[in-house]
């Protein structure tokens, strides 16, 4: 099991949360709390989740992404996924959640 970590990156147009390790039931609350903090920053239009170093995600992780997406929609913002590894792209597609998030970008 890869250690989970969240790193707040600064400097861009949007706040970026770098997610690393296994995203499962044990860490979903942490991901939701930290994501909502990013969404509450004033003057922003989106929260970017950088998933490059995510090694695994289960349905609890997916549910956390949906929760953040819904929270963003309520305040007129978006959740953008970036550097999504192929395995997570496949998981999002299988779960029919890929259309829910803005198209993954690989050029962040």
């Amino acid at each position, binding site marked *: *099991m890869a250690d989970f970590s969240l790193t707040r990156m600064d400097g861009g147009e949007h706040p970026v949360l770098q997610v690393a390790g*296994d995203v499962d*039931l044990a860490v*979903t609350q942490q991901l939701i709390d930290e994501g909502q903090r990013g969404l509450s920053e004033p003057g922003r239009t989106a929260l970017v989740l950088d998933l490059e170093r995510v*090694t*695994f995600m*289960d*349905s*609890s992780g*997916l*549910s956390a992404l*949906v*929760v953040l997406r*819904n*929270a963003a929609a309520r305040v007129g913002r978006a959740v953008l996924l970036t550097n999504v590894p*192929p*395995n997570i792209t*496949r*998981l999002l597609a*299988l*779960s*029919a*959640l890929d*259309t*829910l998030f803005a198209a993954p970008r690989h050029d962040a």
Partner: protein
Amino acid sequence: MTSPARRTPARLVAGIALTGALLTAAASWAAWRTNRGNEHRLLVLQTRQAASVISSAIIGIVSPLQTALQTARATDGDPAAFRAYVNDHVGPNALFVSAALWRTDGAAPVPLVSVGGAPELAPGSAAARAFVSRATRSTSFVVTSITTGPLPRIGYALAVPTDHRFAVYAERAIPANRRVAVERGSAFADLHFATYLGPTTRTSAMQTADVALDQLPLRGNTVRETIPFGDTVLTLVAAPARPLGGGLGTNLPWILIVGGVAVTVAAMVVAAQLARQRRSAERDTATIAGLYGELDGLYGEQRTISETLQHALLPRSNPTIPHLEIASRYVAGAHGVDIGGDWYSVIRLDGDRFGFVVGDVSGRGVDAAALMARIRFTLRAYLVEGHDPRVALELCSRQVDVDADGHIVTVLVGTGELSTRRVTLANAGHPSPLLVSGGEARYAVTAAGPPLGVRGGTYPLTTLDMPAGSMLIAFTDGLIERRTENLDTGLRRLADVAAPATGPVDAVLTGLLSSLCSDGSEDDVAILAFRWDG
């Protein structure tokens, strides 16, 4: 805690106290005895030394008298010569207070010449004549104690037995209180002493002492020495004025007692403290063990409750449907006590139709299981009412909200027609079912909508016409998902294992689980499979 464990410290401390007291007493007594022995030996040595000093002093007193006697014999009793010699030794501060030469070859001794003060023993007296006569018969000088005057004196008389012509008589003063001062560093410096004329220690015979008369006779540790003194003896009695071996010897027993008591008390305190700490550690250990025991009990209890609930929520058995062989499995993952949210369900709808559902609520716990039960029975109701899988899912999706329920739910819903072997599917973000036919396996292609809980999804229908003898296997992701590999690897492995499977459907599922989950899948697994008559 048992009572022996409580008693032990008190016993231990008492034992230490007793041992310490015994050792201290023994050491102190041994030191006292050794010191007493040493003190006595030193007293004997010092008294002998003092006796030899007195012997020398006696020689110093008598030798001027011997010289005076020789002078008289050489000059045939010339008074002038006697006076000339003796003058230096007689006077208030000299050796003698008076000295006289006697002629002793007549019928009775007659004094010839006297130097110094008047003798206490009057020259004409019978006592004087008797004393001088005694000297002429003695091989040594003779001594007498004179106590008739205001001050005590000692009389000395000296003659030569082979020459009876002359004898010398002299008197020596004794200090008024018979007390003498002792110089520091002398042989007597560390002693209290008294000297007695003759072999007895009667106070009347006492000559000199360094203590007051009322402190005599000396008591305690005393040593007696007898010193030859003319035709009699001088008795010396001595006692230590201070510890002869130094202060340490005397103080050592006390030092040992104080030190021993201090060490014993310290040992008692340390022992009591250690015992207390040990008892407290034992208590803590017992408490911790008890808590762990309770925790184990609670854990086991919760696990049992979870399993009971899980089994209560899953169907006891699948319905019997003609021309259809149905089997299912539920396997709890190798995780903690939390209940999972996987389920399966098969429903007979009417004479020709049946419905089936396989679903997975994200997360774990009782609320996940409760949501699972809610969705399971809601979907069942919609299917029983006659809705197709698309409508059933869309109706159901309005009743689930991830923001309120905290979970998303993936579900595969299908209906089948026995007469046509046509299967209609709708999918809410769930893995597509595997179709096995003629030794080949492929996944159905479904147009999936998002999981329940994500609002606004649509769930288009997929229609499959299944060949006779073909099998459909619906499952939850626990069967294919591994943390260390991608999803397609797991899907391919399932297809590879399922393709050649033959025999009863139930046995096929047993084989799949033993191939794919033999290592104990982390997640729960639900599988539902059915095969059409061949």
